[in-house]
């Protein structure tokens, strides 16, 4: 009986030379539904790219992204999941009028005054966040 050889997808081993930062404007995902957005993001993550996304994902999309990456761990060799952090563009000192204006804009055109950083865990060792900054510590391999 011939033993069936399991075929696993591999992702390229990251090296310093491979580090790519991909800036993604909100317009690149604004027309996509949740599945399309996740597909687009995961496609870049699997190419070992760090994504800086203008705007932020909805909570439901974030949770689906985590779910999706958990499914891939163990099935794609070298893939360890993702690191993700978001920064809101909110200003605590803004006036009531400004707040209402921003909320209306958020409903109409999405939350574009935020930044989300997403990277493959094999490249980004750690992502730390506080309200004003996101720091990435890259893995040395």
């Amino acid at each position, binding site marked *: 009986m011939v033993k069936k050889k399991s075929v696993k997808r591999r992702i390229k081993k990251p090296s310093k030379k491979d580090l790519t930062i991909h800036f993604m404007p909100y317009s690149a995902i604004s027309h996509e539904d949740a599945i399309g957005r996740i597909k687009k993001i995961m496609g870049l993550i699997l190419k070992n790219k760090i994504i800086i996304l203008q705007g932020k994902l*909805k*909570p*439901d999309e*974030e*949770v689906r992204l*985590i*779910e999706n*990456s*958990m*499914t891939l*761990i*163990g099935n794609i060799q070298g893939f*360890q*999941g*993702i*690191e*993700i*952090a*978001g920064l809101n563009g909110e200003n605590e000192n803004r006036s009531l009028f400004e707040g209402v204006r921003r909320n209306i804009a958020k409903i109409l055109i999405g939350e574009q005054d935020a930044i989300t950083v997403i990277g493959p*865990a094999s490249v980004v060792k750690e*992502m*730390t*966040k*506080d*309200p004003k900054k996101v720091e990435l510590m890259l893995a040395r391999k």
Partner: protein
Amino acid sequence: MIKIIRNFARRIFAGVFKKKGEIKLGFYGSPNAGKTSLANRICQDWLGEDLGSVSRMPHETREIQIKEKVILERDGKKIEFKLIDTPGVATRIDFEDFMKFGLKRKAAQERAKEATQGIIASIKWLDDMDAVIVLIDSTINPYSQVNITILGNLAARNIPVLVVANKIDLKKSDIKKVRGAFPEYDVVGISAKNGDNMEEFYEELFKLVKKV
């Protein structure tokens, strides 16, 4: 959006027909935040038995653990809970991390696989909770995306939440930082391991139940 509407309808339907007092209380948070320790503390206080095992190694809980008919009493009022302890939610799993705790390669790989399945199960169970306690380790940076994602999803599903800052017995604990990170939530500080401040926790838990 459909999911949220469906969940809303399910909650209304369940609210009409569910047995009075039976509340599905979920424990969510990052690995090693102390979810099982708190669930055990509650079970010990009211049933005299544990719900699950705890360990320093992350992802000790890799399956949903349930304890039914946990009846809590306060000021003459009894409430029946179904405690649902969930595996810690993380965005990354590296089996080599488990090897640092002494596991052999194969065992570490198996644990990693189970941990990923546990995270998926935790996410799926979000829709089934009546109320949730989000555990945050008060000795580390609370601004983790996992905490934000969990809280964002619970808010989107309109599920009442109590944020619990755990490990207040440790020197590095900073409950002010947790409160600063989540100003829109009630935050109660406890030590699930030592049972510190459990009275305040139960008081907040009964307040939470009123929102269900």
